[in-house]
């Protein structure tokens, strides 16, 4: 995995953090609207990405 690939994954993770943070803020502002589906989608994407990143890093040691 090269620097560009790591930056690309980090970029996606930061986007997903932005979405999660933003929807939590929106939920706090509104109290009513349920953004849980969007939040769960982003968490799933982050899980996949972090797993992939860890696998890639582990493969570097082999």
């Amino acid at each position, binding site marked *: 995995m090269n620097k560009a690939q790591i930056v690309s994954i980090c970029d996606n993770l930061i986007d997903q953090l932005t979405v999660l943070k933003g929807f939590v*803020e929106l939920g706090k502002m509104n109290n009513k609207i349920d953004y849980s589906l969007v939040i769960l989608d982003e968490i799933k994407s982050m899980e996949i990405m972090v797993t992939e990143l860890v696998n890639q890093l582990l493969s570097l040691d082999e």
Partner: protein
Amino acid sequence: MLGSNKYILVVDDNYGIRRLMYQFLTQEGYNVKEASDGLMALRLVIEKKPDLVLLDLRMPGLSGLQTLDKLRDLVPETIVVIMSAYYDALDLQMAVKEGKIKHFIIKPFDLTEVGVLLNDLMNNVTFNQSIIS
């Protein structure tokens, strides 16, 4: 309503960011359209000139800075706010020094702060237009 029907175009390849900004900005009273890449953004800008463009820096195809150059030709008076991650800060500062960028927000941003920034920028636009007319 803060936005008073001003038109904002959100350009980001991430669906979640577009949904987030759409929800937030419509709630703030803005008219919002979304583009998932630079080319789509340029097509929408030709259809109707936005008051402000929120533009992601890192996108597949046309990058944020390439899209910005084309926006400057098409709609020079439209305010452009670049959205980017902190590790792009050096590039952004360089672009600010060169006069390419005036405003940028760093992800993951605080929506309340973004709302204040956009409101301030929109008010300045109205003020400037009043002076010109």
